[in-house]
């Protein structure tokens, strides 16, 4: 009887040893990884990048034209410049954005410029960049800018929009 107890005690010890050895290595790895992580640097915080384009760059009166085929871009720019007799007016919004129309909306909304994770600048309602209500802002200079809707249906219908500054140009 005593012998049987001694045998089972040895078995238990052996099993515990195996169990400890099998968990020791992963645990040690985790501890090492944790210590190494702490030793190097904290995890990066989400980066909020300011858009490269200030809202003031869009404020003003613009000749507004659109095209679907890239071959039409040069003459569309020319046409936009000639549309200043009925300009598209962009005013500054009360919250620092710009007052513009969303797709198919006759009423103005305050839109903001947003830096997207893809490096593009988006124009749309406050919130995440690159959503369906946004448009990508391209080719900005003091006298012009270009936009393309993110939403494929809007992009398909409205094509590429060109805005050319009316009045005194830089």
């Amino acid at each position: 009887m005593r012998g049987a107890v001694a045998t089972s005690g040895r078995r238990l010890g052996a099993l515990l040893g195996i169990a400890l050895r099998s968990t020791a290595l992963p645990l040690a790895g985790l501890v090492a990884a944790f210590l190494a992580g702490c030793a190097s640097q904290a995890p990066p915080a989400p980066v909020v990048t300011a858009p490269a384009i200030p809202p003031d760059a869009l404020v003003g009166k613009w000749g507004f034209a659109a095209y679907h085929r890239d071959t039409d871009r040069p003459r569309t720019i020319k046409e936009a410049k000639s549309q200043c007799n009925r300009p598209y007016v962009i005013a500054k919004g009360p919250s620092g954005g710009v007052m513009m129309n969303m797709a198919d909306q006759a009423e103005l909304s305050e839109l903001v410029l947003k830096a997207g994770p893809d490096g593009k600048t988006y124009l749309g309602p406050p919130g995440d960049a690159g959503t369906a209500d946004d448009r990508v802002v391209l080719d900005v200079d003091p006298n012009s800018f270009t936009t393309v809707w993110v939403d494929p249906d809007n992009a398909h219908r409205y094509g590429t929009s060109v805005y050319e500054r009316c009045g005194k140009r830089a």
Partner: protein
Amino acid sequence: MTVRASFFGRAAAAALAAAVFLPGLFAAAQQIDMNVVDQPGYQPKPEEEQLSGAYEKQEVFFRTNEAPGTIIIDTKQRFLYLVQPDNRALRYGIGVGRDGFQWSGLQKISRKQEWPDWRPPPEMIERQPYLPRFMAGGPGNPMGARALYLGQTIYRIHGTNQPQTIGHAISSGCFRLVNDDVTDLYGRVPIGTKVIIRQAVAL
């Protein structure tokens, strides 16, 4: 920007049979303006552009003193006739100016343009301020595939990307055909063609 023409499907289906045999009666009964806004960039499916019944292009009996090659537009019935010899004419279904935008007169085709550009009229910009003031021509352009300019007026015979508007008083005074029809007409008529616009044509 959606087409609000829900009535059109049921009403058109119910009247289609009568339209085939009584086109004048059918067209005269269509005095309800469609509440439709332009859909720049919209490209209709081929089956949408396929007209049927009275508004499908067809050769018809047509007695007139006008010479073959003359265009006669009947704004009331919403047909465009291209006069042919021997008391015949090619008849196309058209969309016309809505109330207050219909007119009559005598013009000549002063210019022809493939895939014309589109400049929404001021009242349209007022209603839809988000529209570009100029849209380069191409598929999806509200001016459609071809335009025939009428004299020195601001009016044209042109195509459309809204084939469901054919047979309706919808435009700002221009006359619109489906793209296949305006392309066909464009190929048949030269600059200088006489165009007569009438409220009603006496056959």
